[in-house]
């Protein structure tokens, strides 16, 4: 496997730094109580579900990533909602599965559940455009160091979504400043490099991932520009996630595993590998 060790460690460091940077420099209203509740609930839920399913080892890294992503993106005044979001996110990994793989990116699902519950929201504008450069560096760093993060999905999504945004602005006759401003948002980068790039909830084969990226981009663009949804990216990923198992059946590939010293024996039947193509 290319890259340096477990990519999740880098992701935890990056998300942790973003949470700090966001609250200290950008003035995000991150209440310590809410963040603590999310962390505690995520790790607690992971522990309980691991025991309930008699799994050999506790995967706290993925749970930590989910918790940090939720802390970064979820805004709510209610501890209950924060805990519910974290619990739903972790539980979905164990409950909503298909063919041995969980269907929804946990943080993404947690966000959707919380917003639908009614007293949570996401602030897409919170990053502004000055912090954009900083974020770009963080995300680019992730890309360079860890190809295991399925950065091909991230880049494909960004390319297709940008093309759609530019295309629309061209059709409307807007000056270039308008689509550039629409794309120059930290929320887009976070989504691309930390959410849609999740190797566990994207198709196994590269061709499948490209199709997936195109679908998520198209649905996100439609939700944002036709239905005027504020959080088109988040809803799009949740809506398209169930297509991943379908794409996997149609275009099977090598299933991704986090690098571990003792790789657990998979409970699912072995996935057929297409004769010509393996990794990444």
């Amino acid at each position, binding site marked *: 496997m290319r890259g340096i060790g477990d990519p999740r460690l880098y992701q935890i460091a990056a998300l942790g730094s973003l949470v700090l940077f966001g609250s200290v420099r950008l003035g995000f209203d991150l209440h310590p109580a809410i963040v603590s509740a999310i962390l505690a609930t995520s790790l607690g839920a992971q522990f309980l579900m691991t025991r309930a399913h008699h799994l050999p080892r506790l995967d706290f890294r993925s749970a930590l990533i989910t918790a940090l992503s939720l802390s970064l993106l979820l805004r709510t005044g209610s501890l209950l909602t924060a805990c519910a979001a974290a619990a739903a996110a972790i539980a979905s990994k164990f409950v909503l599965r298909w063919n041995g793989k969980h269907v929804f990116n946990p943080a993404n699902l947690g966000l959707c559940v919380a917003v639908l519950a009614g007293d949570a929201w996401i602030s897409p504008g919170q990053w*502004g455009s000055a912090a954009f450069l900083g974020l770009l560096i963080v995300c680019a760093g992730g890309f360079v160091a860890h190809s295991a993060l399925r950065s091909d999905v991230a880049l494909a999504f960004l390319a297709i979504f940008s093309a759609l945004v530019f295309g629309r602005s061209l*059709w409307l006759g807007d000056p270039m400043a308008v689509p550039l*401003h629409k794309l120059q948002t930290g929320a887009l980068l976070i989504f691309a490099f930390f959410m849609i790039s999740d190797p566990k909830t994207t198709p196994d084969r590269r061709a499948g991932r490209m199709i997936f990226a195109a679908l998520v981009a198209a649905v996100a663009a439609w939700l944002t520009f036709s239905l005027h949804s504020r959080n088109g990216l988040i809803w799009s990923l949740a809506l398209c996630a169930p297509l991943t198992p379908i794409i996997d059946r149609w275009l099977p590939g090598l299933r991704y595993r986090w690098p571990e010293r003792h790789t657990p024996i998979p409970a699912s039947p072995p996935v057929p590998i297409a004769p010509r193509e393996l990794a990444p």
Partner: protein
Amino acid sequence: MKTLTAALLTLVLVLPQSLPAFCGFYVAKADAALFNKASKVVLVRDGRRTVLTMANDFRGDPKEFAIVIPVPEVIKRKQIDVADNAVIDHLDAYSAPRLVEYFDDDPCHQIFYEMAPASRFGAAARTDGDAALGIKIEARYTVGEYDILILSAKESDGLETWLTGNGYRIPKGASQVLGSYVKQGMKFFVAKVNLERQAKSGFTFLRPLRVTYNTRKFMLPIRLGTVNADGPQELFVFALSRKGRIETTNYRTVKLPTDLGLPLFVKDEFAPFYRAMFDRLVTREDMRAVFLEHFWDLGWCDPCAAEPLTAGELRQLGVDWLKGPDSGRPGESEAYLTRLHLRYDAGHFPEDLLFQETRDKENFQGRYVLRHPWTGKPTCEEAEIYLRELPKRRNQEIESLARLTGWSVARIREKAAAYKAPPRNGPR
């Protein structure tokens, strides 16, 4: 006991939004009048129902007045009204960043401020050639002193030609912006002054126009205003909502620095202080941010920078969900007011403002504090400590002011030293 008092008072000073406590005697406010070329807009949002009221500060010849606003649907007569400038001014005064003062007590005889109950309580146009320009006049009304047309256009050049041909002066280069709206299927609300009616009405100033419509897209069009504008403009958005704070989703929201102690002489210089501080904030954020100056539950206020708004005034602005008589006040958690202030131009704000209603109910106000020191003879140890700490506090206030405004520390010290506070009236 004294530490408890000090802690309590500090808590009161630091968390005005979470304690219904005494928040200082109101002294002065920084309202929109401080700023040149400031537009004031009131937005009411309830589900998809949106009410836009535009304060009209046009002071020229009424013949010259014309306004063009893109709207999402053909507006019916009952969706348009004129409002009262006084109500918008009232909203402005009520939510403006405020200066408050305290008078320190004799540290030997601390008076506990009781949790003072916060004030609780609420077109005739030419028709030939229109079709050739792709213009259709969907509707024509006279509302108050205005002649209003609702237009739909097939293409922006036709629209621009039609508008200029019919005496609506729109800036050159607006057709590109208009084109974007035309392609999105938006209609155009176009208003001019009906001079006969205006003369009869007896009003010397033009009244605000209020438009109601339903749309998923919660936005405020600002792009037309930036075409050919000479320099940045100020905009105050007063958003009235039912469930929580309103924020922009395509621009960053920054809260004002608040709850800061300042030297006493700022009492006479609050306006220049506020302008300098705002200028500095805008520069720091590279003129790309929207500033939150106030967000509060309309059911109560503390301190109240102006008389609370009545249900009747809010209804005038389009808030139609309040119960009770016009003279009453909104109850708690019935309505929320968000005050946003931005300085913008086409380069830094290329997109129209897109909003969302969050569920954030945490109150916020821009509040600046003057603390009059106690000047007496120390008769206990606490008083000695207090007098020793006083110079530290003065320095902190001076440093805060310098940091916020960019004024020189030396000059601030001079002014602080030269200032003579007026005598307090009566014991506190």
